């Protein structure tokens, strides 16, 4: 008899474990499989003015690549943190690249006119959403952190703030991989 009791308990416990695991995953967007992968080599044209930027070219510098759009409400919320962080690091070992994703150039420029710019932030466009696809972007905003060797080592989904930005950058400077910070992205 005892073995049947244990069987019942075992099945219920195992199944509850499966369900708990699944419920937890359903709360956030999926984890990025790109953590630990080298960043893709692609040219991104500047939003304002000629020329392009290639994320893989910043050898030795940490790159903070932020996907945003003027129509994304949380992007307005997080924008001051990026401007402040770009000014704080001043291009010294950390490069901030704001990738304007699925937006019109005029609306994006108006956004920057309204919410501000940093001299140490590169603002680029994402023609054909190709950068967004390469990074597996689910919604906006999403921020990826690339270490000095050109490897993607972190992602923050949803609006970011200055303490999180500094925390991720500090971890990368210390040689650790900050990994994922799940959040809610603007996903129509």
């Amino acid at each position, binding site marked *: 008899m005892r073995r049947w009791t244990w*069987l019942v308990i075992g099945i219920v416990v195992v199944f509850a474990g499966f369900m708990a695991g699944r419920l937890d995953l359903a709360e956030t967007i999926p984890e*990025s499989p790109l953590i630990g992968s080298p960043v893709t080599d692609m040219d991104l044209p500047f939003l304002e003015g000629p020329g392009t930027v290639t994320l893989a070219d910043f050898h030795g510098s940490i790159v903070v690549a932020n996907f945003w759009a003027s*129509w994304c409400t949380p992007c307005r919320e997080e924008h001051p943190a990026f401007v402040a962080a770009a000014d704080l690091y001043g291009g010294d070992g950390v490069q901030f690249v704001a990738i304007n994703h*699925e937006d019109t150039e005029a609306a994006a420029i108006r956004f920057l006119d309204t919410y501000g710019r940093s001299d140490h932030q590169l603002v680029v466009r994402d023609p054909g959403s190709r950068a967004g696809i390469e990074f597996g972007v689910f919604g906006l905003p999403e921020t990826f952190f690339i270490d000095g060797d050109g490897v993607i080592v972190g992602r923050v989904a949803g609006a970011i703030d200055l303490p999180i930005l500094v925390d991720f950058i500090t971890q990368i400077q210390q040689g650790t991989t900050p990994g994922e910070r799940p959040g809610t992205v603007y996903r*129509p």
Partner: protein
Amino acid sequence: MTARKVLSWSFTLAAVAVLGWGMLAASSADVDPLAVGDKIACPKCEGESIASSQTPTARAMMEVVDERIGEGLTEREILDWFAARYGPDILLEPPLDLGGVALWAVPVVAVAGGAFLAFRAARVRRRPDGPASSGRYSLVVLGAGALVLTGLAFGIGQFVQPRAPGSAVSGNLEIDPNQDLDGVTNAEMEAVLEQFADIPEANRMRLALARRYFEEGDYSRAVAQFQLVLGNDPTPVEASEALGRIGWILFANGEASAAEVAYLQALDALATNSEAKWFYAILLVEEDRGAEAVPLLEALLDDESVPAEVDDEIERLLETARSGS
């Protein structure tokens, strides 16, 4: 080796060769982009594949599918390419996952186990020389019941799936104005709205569809739907929302003066439309007419229907409006 064995092996090898050649030939040349797109979820939509969605992301992903086919990748390789960037959840038919198989199997095993226990309990009780004490019997029945209930509770949930995209929308617009539209895809709403084009009751669904297009940045489709709402005897609330959002789209396309007309009409239809006030205030500030934006923004700060979390944003714009005026 006998002649029969040689013949048998020859047939087998020939069959393998033919099958292998067929699989190789089908690997790249016969890949249908729409079939591949149907297997990839649109990352910014609910329940739509990139083949059926018209969002900019889905269209761009379909272009990538075409390019990869052109490079000779097989369907499996293309699906893997997307899964390597978005994770396996981007695939509408994810690869076999042992956890998922177990989820399906456990309820079946639980129900079968419960039935077996119940059968065993019944046999124990019927046996005249059996040691069927009432305590032991109760425990067996309890175990059987627990297993059956566990199996049913979890099993039913797996069989009652959300309605699959493409299946019929059963909601009758006239009968059920409170129908939950969250699980209805854009394509399904379009199909229903085609049948109910002239019924004002369809405005609720049309607005829901227009909002989705608006939020997806698909402005041309959004404007088309908002205009149909305006032409279909809208309520003041519906008209005001449609006009306000058309104004925003006009403004985003650099048509500031036309946008202003739309905002004024939106506020004329419904003076309490806080979204239209917010859009209009942004326009005024960006047009260096901050002084005109100040009363709108002050009214938004006093408006209790505006969520408190956007107050900071309103105050920032108010500060800009005051400094520029």
